[in-house]
C-alpha cells in the first residue's frame, strides 16, 4: 500500500552530527571501563586467584619442591605462570559485560548508533586489555616484592607482545561465546575448560618435558603454552629452555618469533570470528 503525503512538511531545526571513526572506539572503551569501575568486583575477582597463586602458592611450592638453593628460581617460574591464569580468567569474565549489555538492553542503543558494529567489539577488547594489563602489572610487582627474580630489559617486549596476543585470543573467544550464549550461568560454565584446564598442561608448574609425549604434543598446540614460554623469555632467564621444549631448536630469537606468530594467528582467528559473528547478530 502506498499512501500520499498529506501534511505540509516542516524542517528539523537541529542538524545531526557526523561521527568520527577515530573517536568511536575510545568512546566505547571509556564506557566499558566506566561500567567496570562501577562494578569493582568484576575486576578484583579474576585477579584474586592468580595473585594468591603467585604470592602464596608459588613460594610454598618453591620451598617444598625445589632443590636446595633453587626455591627462588622455582617460585619465579610458577609466579610468572600465574599471569597465564590471570589473562584468560579476566578476559573471559570481561565477556560477561557483553552478555549484561544484551540482557539490560543497552546493546540495542549501540546497535542503532552510526558506527561500525565491529568497533563495539574492538572497544570491549581495548577495555579488557587495559584492565588485564593493570592486573598483570599488580601480579608481577607483587611477585617481585615477594622475592621472585625478574630481569627487566628489552626482552620485556616479548612478554608484552605475548600477553597482548593471548588477551586478544581469549577475549575474541569471549565475544564469540557472549554472542552465541544467552545466559550468564551457561557462559560461566565455560570458564574452567577455557581458562583453568589448559593452565595445568601449558608448562606453567613444570616443564613440558615432564608430560607424557602425547600430552606434550597437545600442549604445544595450546596458545597458553607459547604465551607462558614467551613470558619467561621476556622477564627471566628461563625462557630459552621453555621455548626449546616447544620447538626443539637452538636459536632462541627464532623460536620466540615462531611462538609469537602462533599466538598472533590464534588471536587474529578469534578476533575475526568474533567480529563476524557480532556483526551478523546485530542485524538478524
Amino acid at each position, binding site marked *: *500500500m*502506498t*499512501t*500520499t*503525503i*498529506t*501534511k*505540509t*512538511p*516542516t*524542517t*528539523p*531545526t*537541529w*542538524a*545531526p*552530527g*557526523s*561521527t*568520527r571513526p577515530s*573517536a*568511536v572506539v575510545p*568512546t*566505547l572503551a571509556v*564506557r566499558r571501563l*566506566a*561500567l567496570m569501575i*562501577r*562494578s569493582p568486583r568484576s575486576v578484583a575477582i579474576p585477579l584474586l586467584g592468580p595473585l594468591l597463586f603467585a604470592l602464596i602458592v608459588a613460594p610454598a611450592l618453591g620451598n617444598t619442591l625445589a632443590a636446595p638453593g633453587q626455591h627462588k628460581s622455582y617460585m619465579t617460574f610458577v609466579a610468572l605462570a600465574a599471569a597465564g591464569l590471570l589473562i584468560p580468567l579476566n578476559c573471559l569474565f570481561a565477556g560477561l559485560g557483553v552478555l549484561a549489555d544484551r540482557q*539490560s*538492553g*543497552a546493546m*540495542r*542503543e*549501540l*546497535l*542503532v*548508533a*552510526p*558506527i*561500525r558494529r565491529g568497533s563495539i567489539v574492538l572497544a570491549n577488547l581495548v577495555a579488557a586489555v587495559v584492565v588485564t594489563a593493570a592486573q598483570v602489572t599488580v601480579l608481577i610487582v607483587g611477585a617481585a616484592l615477594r622475592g621472585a627474580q625478574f630481569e627487566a630489559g628489552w626482552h620485556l617486549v616479548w612478554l608484552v607482545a605475548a600477553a597482548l596476543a593471548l588477551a586478544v585470543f581469549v577475549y575474541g573467544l569471549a565475544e564469540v561465546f557472549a554472542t552465541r550464549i544467552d545466559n550468564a550461568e551457561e557462559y560461566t560454565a565455560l570458564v574452567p575448560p577455557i581458562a583453568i584446564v589448559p593452565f595445568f598442561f601449558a608448562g606453567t608448574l613444570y616443564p613440558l618435558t615432564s608430560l607424557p609425549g602425547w600430552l606434550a604434543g597437545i600442549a604445544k598446540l595450546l596458545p597458553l603454552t607459547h604465551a607462558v614460554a614467551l613470558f619467561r623469555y621476556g622477564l627471566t632467564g628461563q625462557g630459552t629452555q621453555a621455548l626449546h621444549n616447544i620447538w626443539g631448536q637452538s636459536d632462541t630469537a627464532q623460536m620466540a618469533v615462531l611462538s609469537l606468530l602462533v599466538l598472533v594467528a590464534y588471536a587474529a582467528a578469534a578476533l575475526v570470528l568474533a567480529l563476524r559473528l557480532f556483526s551478523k547478530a*546485530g*542485524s*538478524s
Partner: protein
Amino acid sequence: MTAIRPAVEADRLVKTYPGDVKAVDGISFSVAPGQAFGLLGPNGAGKSTTIGMLTTTVKPTSGRATLGGIDVARNPIATRSISSVVFQDAVVDRPLTGRQNLVSHLRLWGVEPAVGQARYEELSEAVGIAGLLKRPVSTYSGGERRRLEIVRALLSGPQVLFLDEPTVGLDTRVRHDLFDTIATIRQRTGVTIIMTTHYLDEAERLCDRLAIIDAGRIVACDSPQALLASIGDEVLDLRVSNPPEAVDALHRHGVDDHDIAVTGSTVTAPVHNVIAHRVTAYLAEQAVTVHSATTRRPTLDDVYLRLTGASIAGSDN
C-alpha cells in the same frame, strides 16, 4: 500530494523468519518530514519488526526502505546517523549516571561538544530531568528513565525519531506526562516521529497519520479522524445472551456483516444515521435477549475490530 522527499519511506517490506514465519508481509508507507506516523496493532502484528528494519537491526527479506532518501540496507551507518530510537524496554546503562549516558550518545553520534552541551542543557531542562543527571540511572523511576531516554534520543538532532511503544509499562499519570513531553519535543524540534503503540489514545492524540497493522500487513492507513469517520458518529454495544442470534437479527435489519464485531457476549455495530433505540426495538421484536445496550463515540479499537475482526486490547491479552 507534495514534491518534498519523504522523511521515511517503506516499499513492500517483507521479513520472514526461519520456519517461514512472516512477521512483516509487504508493508509500504511514506511519511513526510515533521509528521508523526503511528503503527498501530496488537503485540505480534509486526510493528517492532518494521521499526527494526527501518533502524537496521533487522534485515529485510525483501523490499526497500529509505530514511531521508538514504537506502537503509545500502547505507546503514548514514541512516543511523539521522535517526534515533526510544525502545520499548529500558535501554540504558543503569550503573552509570544520566549524564554519562547522555555524553556517550553525543559522542557516538558525533555531535560537536558545544552544540551537544547546549542541547543537553535545553532538553534536560525542558523534560524536567536536569536535577537527576548526576545520579546513577539505577536510582531513577520508570518515568524518569523514559524521559532520559527521550532526551538522549533527541541529543543528536535526528531527522527521524522512532518511538517503539514509548509508554508501555508506565502508570497512567506518568504515561500522560510523558505523552505531553513527546508532544512538546515534537513542536520544539520539528522531528519526524514514527511511533508504535497499542494505546489508542496515544495514537489518536499524537499521530497525524496511522497505519493499522494486522498479521504483518497494513490494513488501513489514514489520519485518525478519517479512520474514525469510516465507522460513523456512534457505535452500539449490545450485551446479549446469544451473539450469533443478535448478529443474524442485525443482518436482517440491514447492518452490513463487515460492520459487526463480536467480542465475547458483546456485539458491536456502527449505527450510521440510524437511531440506536430503533435497532434495539427491532432486536426485541426478533426475540433477541438484550441485557444492555449502550451507544458511544467510536474509538480506534472499533476501527481495528471492523478491519480485522479482533480488538487490539483483546489481542494483547
